[in-house]
Structures are given as structure tokens and as C-alpha cells.
């Protein structure tokens, strides 16, 4: 936790510089103070979440069936009248009734963005997403996963950075310089959805003597040519994905963060109701160099049965060539099948079902998601997750007793 607070402190400090610079320049231009406050906008989400686990925990120290928590994510933003400067501040806090590690705070975003013609400059903490596929986000690498939030690895910790972007006729180029590495969060002793042994995050090991202060660099290029969207990316720095090593003298594991280099490509070809997708990476620095890829297709049947509803079908094949027990994955040779139903009604009702099969070890997991707006400012979301992997050699097998249902009621303001 101390390191989180240190990072929060740093983000606030970075933001303060940005705020100071912008306000100073506004005063220098004789801007009206009133107008500055007029352009401040506050919104956000407050949510209550209930988790129900279907089976007893493997270990007595873990919570047994019911886990209640709530989170709060306000968003404060300011934009200058000429739209060239933006400040955004998004703190996040979750309080969990059972797992102390899941009770945590973060600065999701705290940045100053300056836009000048084709150039864009950003300083502070931000979240950045790259990629096109649904079952796995291989190319996405800027932000650390906030692992206590959800098993789907779609919640991310804010990453301090300086980003410079340039739009050209040949596409967009972005460069990222980062430090203040964020360690992945893991459930604690009481928590479910974890390895049999607790991950002792306070004793994380790094390749670099600079530990979390070692700088990372990343380059990103995106463009589109007719129906084809192209993304290329390069990353060199501390890999976000931790390895797990034995903690000498204890029954715990500690995360290991090594220096990696990664090249990624993401492609999408969009034609008629078809989306053809590919993501691939080559990574060096976690055992032997390896490649990994996801390739798939999404087809949507619009207005099924003369209703307003759309049904999308998804198939993705996953390959991961890594051969290292420290940085293991369960997605070495898998197939993902999914269906997405969108009602296109006033309440934006939608549902998604996804199924992962390991070509060697059989069914891996089944996931169901559904959501619907209630009134104008509430939303009810349901998630059901069945962990079906029972081959002890597959890393996903540690979750086999942790199948759960999650119900979230959110208020948006």
C-alpha cells in the first residue's frame, strides 16, 4: 500500500505542475477567472458490488461464499476555452468487506493534455488501450492490470507518463516515456480468485536495481487504409506481466518483474458485417523469446427476427509460444467462442457469452455478462464466470473452485 500512496503523491505532484502551468498561462493572457471555473465538469460513478462464489474455498483462510464491496470513481475535468488545454483527474477507491488487499485506492488519471495543431502533449497519469481482439489483449502494454478488480484483466492502474503524439497524412505517431512502474495488485489471504499460495506483493523482485524507477519507453503507430486499420507498437522496459517465484523461507510467492522488449501488431479488416482481427507480439525478456497471437472474426446479424436486436458471433484462436514456468499462461493453444446480443432498446440492454476451450486440456471457462440501464442514471450489471479447467498442469486450474456470480449496481452522476 505504501507504494500506492507514493504513486498517488507523485501523480498529484505531476498534475500540480500541469495545473500551475495552465493557470499561469491563462492569467498571463488575462483570462477571466470566472470562465475557468465555468469550464470545470464533474461526473463519475458510485457502485455497489456483490459477489457470490458457488463452491467453498480450497483453503480455510479464504472467504467462503459472499463478498460485498463498493467503489467510487469521480472524474473532474477542465478544458480551456480554446480547447487546447485539458486537465483530467480521476481518482478511484474500492472498499471490500472481506479482502483488505482489494480495499485500495488509485489515481486512474491525473494529466494535463496540450493540443497544438497536429501535435499532442500529455503529462501525468493516464490509461491507454491498444488492440482489437476480445478474448485477450496481447498488444496492450502501457498500463498495469488492477488484478484485484476483476479476473478479466480489463481494469488498469494509472501509469505516470509523458506522451507526445503527432498526426500526419501517413497516420499517427506516439512516443511514451514512463517511470513509476505500477505493481500488479493481487487478492490477499482472505481473497478468492488467487493461486493456492498468496502473492506477497510487498517483496516484489525486479531485474533492474532501479526497481520501479527504471524508465520505460514505448512507440505507437496507427493508421487506416480503406477497410484496414493498422497498429504497430514497440515497448522496452519493465514488463507489466509478473512472474511468480518462491519466497524463500515462507509459503508465499513473490512477483518478479523483468526487463522486456516487445514488438506488437494489431490489424482489423472491416467489411460489411464482418470484423476480421489479428493481434500478435514478439517478446524477449521473460525466459526465451517467444511469439503470441490472437486471430479471429466477428460477424453481426443485424435486426434479428425483425426486431431491433443485433446478434454478433465471435470466434478467436489464441496461441502463446512461451515456455517458461515462471511466466506461465493458460492461453497457449485455445479457442474462444462468443456471442453478443444487443437489444438496441432505450435502456441499452446487452448480453455477452464467452467460452474458452484449451485444445489440449479441454474446456477452460465460461463467462456471461449482461447489463441494462435503469432510469437515466443507474445501471445494473451481471457477470457469471465458471472456471472449468481441471488439469492440474494448466495454470487456470488454480481457479477451479472459484466460479462466481457478480452483481453490480452503479449510479452515474
Amino acid at each position, binding site marked *: 500500500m505504501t507504494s500506492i500512496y507514493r504513486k498517488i503523491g507523485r501523480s498529484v505532484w505531476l498534475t500540480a505542475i500541469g495545473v500551475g502551468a495552465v493557470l499561469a498561462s491563462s492569467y498571463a493572457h488575462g483570462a477571466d477567472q470566472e470562465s475557468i471555473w465555468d469550464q470545470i465538469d464533474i*461526473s463519475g*460513478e458510485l457502485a455497489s458490488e456483490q459477489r457470490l462464489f458457488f463452491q467453498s474455498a480450497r483453503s480455510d483462510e479464504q472467504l467462503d461464499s459472499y463478498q460485498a464491496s463498493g467503489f467510487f470513481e469521480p472524474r473532474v*475535468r477542465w478544458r480551456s476555452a480554446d480547447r487546447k488545454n*485539458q486537465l483530467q483527474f480521476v481518482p478511484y477507491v474500492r472498499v471490500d468487506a472481506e479482502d483488505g488487499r482489494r480495499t485500495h485506492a488509485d489515481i486512474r488519471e491525473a494529466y494535463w*493534455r496540450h*493540443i497544438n*495543431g*497536429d501535435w*499532442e502533449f500529455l503529462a501525468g497519469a493516464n*490509461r*491507454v*488501450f491498444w*488492440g*482489437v481482439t476480445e478474448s485477450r489483449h496481447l498488444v496492450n502494454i502501457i498500463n498495469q492490470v488492477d488484478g484485484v478488480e476483476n479476473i478479466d484483466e*480489463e481494469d488498469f492502474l494509472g501509469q505516470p507518463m509523458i506522451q507526445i*503524439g503527432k*498526426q500526419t497524412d501517413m497516420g*499517427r505517431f506516439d512516443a511514451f516515456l514512463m517511470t513509476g512502474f505500477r505493481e500488479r495488485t493481487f487478492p490477499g489471504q482472505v481473497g478468492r480468485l488467487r493461486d493456492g499460495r498468496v502473492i506477497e506483493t510487498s517483496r516484489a523482485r525486479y531485474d533492474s536495481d532501479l526497481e520501479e524507477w527504471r524508465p520505460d519507453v514505448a512507440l505507437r503507430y*496507427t493508421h*487506416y487504409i480503406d*477497410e484496414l*486499420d493498422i497498429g504497430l507498437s514497440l515497448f522496452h522496459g519493465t514488463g507489466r506481466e509478473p512472474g511468480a517465484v518462491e519466497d524463500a523461507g515462507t509459503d508465499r510467492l513473490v512477483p518478479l518483474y523483468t526487463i522486456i522488449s516487445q514488438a506488437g501488431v494489431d490489424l*482489423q479488416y*472491416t*467489411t*460489411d*458485417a*464482418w*470484423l476480421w482481427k489479428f493481434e500478435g507480439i514478439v517478446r524477449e525478456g521473460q525466459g526465451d523469446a517467444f511469439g503470441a497471437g490472437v486471430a479471429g472474426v466477428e460477424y*453481426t446479424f*443485424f*435486426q434479428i427476427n425483425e426486431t*431491433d436486436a*443485433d446478434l454478433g458471433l465471435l470466434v478467436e484462436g489464441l496461441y502463446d509460444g512461451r515456455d517458461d514456468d515462471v511466466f506461465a499462461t493458460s492461453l497457449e493453444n485455445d479457442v474462444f467462442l462468443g456471442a453478443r446480443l444487443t437489444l*438496441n*432498446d*432505450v*435502456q*441499452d440492454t446487452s448480453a455477452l457469452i464467452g467460452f474458452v476451450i484449451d485444445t489440449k486440456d479441454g474446456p477452460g471457462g465460461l463467462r456471461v455478462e449482461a447489463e441494462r*440501464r435503469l432510469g*437515466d*442514471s443507474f*445501471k445494473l450489471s451481471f457477470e457469471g464466470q465458471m472456471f472449468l479447467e481441471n488439469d492440474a498442469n494448466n495454470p487456470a486450474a488454480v481457479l477451479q473452485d472459484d466460479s462466481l456470480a457478480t452483481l453490480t449496481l*452503479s449510479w*452515474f*452522476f
Partner: protein
Amino acid sequence: MTNLLNTHKSLRRAIAIGLASLVLATTPALSQDAANKGFEVAAKSDRSDRGFGDSTVILSMVLKNAAGAESTRSMAMTTLELPDESIGDRSLVRFDSPADIEGTSLLSHAQIIDADDQWLFLPALKRVKRISSRNKSGPFVGSEFAFEDITGQELEKYDHVWVREEACGDLMCDVVERKPRYENSGYTRQLVWIDQSDAQFRKIEYYDRKNDLLKTQTFEDYKLYEGKFWRSQLFRMENHQTGKSTVLKFSDYTFNTGLTDRDFVKGVLKRQR
């Protein structure tokens, strides 16, 4: 959703000569005069809108179901008119409410013949997603407006036939029947009332795939901007088959603010809110 502003005829520009000759070549001689006149009336309306450059507008949408329950949405839209008429206009819609979809933005590059290029920004994951634009007849954000009601206003997307002239309120209107030429339309035909004074749309009747009257759209509260661009401040769409209706209000129009095509690339989606 693609080009809400196209509804305002921004894109209904004449590829007039080429199309007129096409119409001449393919229409039986008997209805040729009616076809020519129908096209001319529609083309005049389309041309009345040229040269707006770019525009921004705030939209508010009120959805009403058969029982009268209301739901609202608000959005901001910017549109860029491109000088090259073989390329469609560009538009960016940012949703401001309901609060759970706030910040969701849609970038569209309209095409004349091919499917539009569309990218959606989903703020929850900060993800930019290229989406299929095949869905012409589906509802736009749960409203009674279909995507094609909003994007399908380009002149050359229809075959036109002049039907009659009749009074429309205080004005005299030409009634033009138009049939979609593009694929996947939900309509067999539409009847459009275009006034003879300012050449603006006053009403559209939409006929479904069974040729039954499905919806009526009225264009109300016209206002003249910059001395030359007519804009209806209120669209009313009534669905006769379901009893639902949607009102779309436009406010705070600005024109020629100096936007360029660089303001309509997918890289700008994430900085819209």
C-alpha cells in the same frame, strides 16, 4: 448517427449532371418528366446548403414510448464539409447523457457509394473500435430515428419521382417520392415534402418493407444562419405502428469555425470529452 447533420442536407449535394443522365437513361419515357422534376426539386434543396464549411451543434433527444414515458439523450456534433464531392462529409458525435455512456464518441467518414467508415470510442476501456456500418435500418440510440434517416440523405442515394404539389402549412410544397438505391434499407419508398420558397424539407413519410406507412418526420422551427443556411431546430418522428415518438432538438449552431480533416481522424476520439 453517421452524419446527423446530413439530415440537414449537408450531404445532399448534386452529383447532378451524372445522375440526371443516369436517370434519363434508365427511366421509361412516360415517367421521365416526373423523374426529372423530382430530381430537380431534390437537387435544388440539396444545393441550398452548400458552402457551410464546418458546423457544431448541440442536440437533445426526447424518446417517448406508447405509454408516454420519456427518456432523454444529449450529444454534441461537429461536421466537416469536404470540398471534393466524391468524398462524403465527416462527422463526430459525442454523447453527454445518459451519464453511463457519457464520453462515448462516434467518428464517421461518409462514403458516397461504399459503406461509411465508422469508429467508436468506448470511454470505460478507453478503446477505439472500428465498427460495421452495414446496419442501415436499425434504431439510432434506441430512438425512432433509424441510422439511414440520419445518414441516408445524400441526393444520389435515391431515385426520385415528382408526385404532386400541395399546400404545406402556409407554404406550397412539391411532393417527391424517393426510393433508396443503397442496400439494406428498411424502406420501400419515402414521400418528401419540399417547400417551393426556400427548398427545405418540411415532412417525410417513411414506408416499410411491406409498403405500409411506418413513420412520419416533420421538420419544424426553421432558422436562417449566416444569411444562407436554413436549419430546422426540431425534428419530430412519429412511429405509426408502435405509437412511439422521438423529438430531436438542435441548438447553438456555429458555422465555419475553421475545422480541418485533421479534426476528424480516429486519433482525436479519445480527447473529445
